[in-house]
């Protein structure tokens, strides 16, 4: 049963949304790093077949670290939905994750997040908020 939002301390709501955003960002970054270390899956599939591509992904430890964080993000979302309204949790976590991923992509994956990508991240972030609200 969902507890009325007014009875939740605002910092508790912030902590729940922060947990989703942090776990999701860690999961996305680790999965992206795993796939970069594996290499182009289309080329691997052309060379070693579908089984070879699956084996290449499943033998990468970073992939499992990424999936573990994505699972944590999913359970954090379920926990938050048990206490907060969907109309708050979904847009807030989805749009904030886009910005934190851009920051994490620049810092940890050394991606070239230029002005074009920053603008895109902010536009999509506001757009997702409007669309889901």
């Amino acid at each position, binding site marked *: 049963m969902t507890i009325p939002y007014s009875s939740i301390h605002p910092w508790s709501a912030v902590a729940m949304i922060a947990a989703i955003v942090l776990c999701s960002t860690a999961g996305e970054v680790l999965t992206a790093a795993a*796939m970069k270390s594996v290499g182009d899956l289309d080329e691997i599939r052309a060379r070693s077949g579908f089984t070879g591509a699956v084996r290449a992904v499943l033998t990468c430890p970073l992939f499992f670290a990424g999936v573990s964080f994505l699972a944590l993000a999913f359970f954090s979302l379920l926990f938050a939905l048990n206490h907060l309204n969907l109309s708050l949790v979904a847009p807030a976590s989805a749009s904030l994750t*886009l910005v934190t991923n851009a920051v994490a*992509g620049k810092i940890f*994956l050394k991606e070239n997040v230029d002005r*074009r990508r920053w*603008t*895109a991240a902010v*536009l*999509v972030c506001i*757009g997702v908020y409007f669309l889901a609200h």
Partner: protein
Amino acid sequence: MMAHARLLPRQYMILLLVALCAPLGDSCLSRGMSSLPAISIGHPATLIAAIFTPWIALGIVLLIGFFASYLTALSWADLTFVLPATAFGNVIVALLAHFWLHEPISIERWAGIVLITLGVGFVANGPSLTERPAIDLQAQPAAQLDQEQVR
């Protein structure tokens, strides 16, 4: 790994799958779960049985398709390039709901659709992958030249 300045048609197809499979899969799960009676924590076996209902099974297949295409996209494109494509799926679903199911879309949602489309357009016009090896290749001859000068 080579950088792809321009994506190939099959790579655009993968991005389209990423954009479409996630929201369609979520919609199928939502439709399947809402048509079931309320499930309590005391009866977890009901959740297992729910997997085999048509809408939820279709949703799971679509989400597996999303994850496979998402992993493929991440193997040749940057995370900051792929993620806006994921968000573009919400736009496609909203437009399908409006023109196909005749659902009303508020001004805020139209604003969201325009902003996401603009954002995806910004990213799609740029390179899909950060060009790291090119820097290393340029740095290597320069380092060799320095060593030769020292000799």
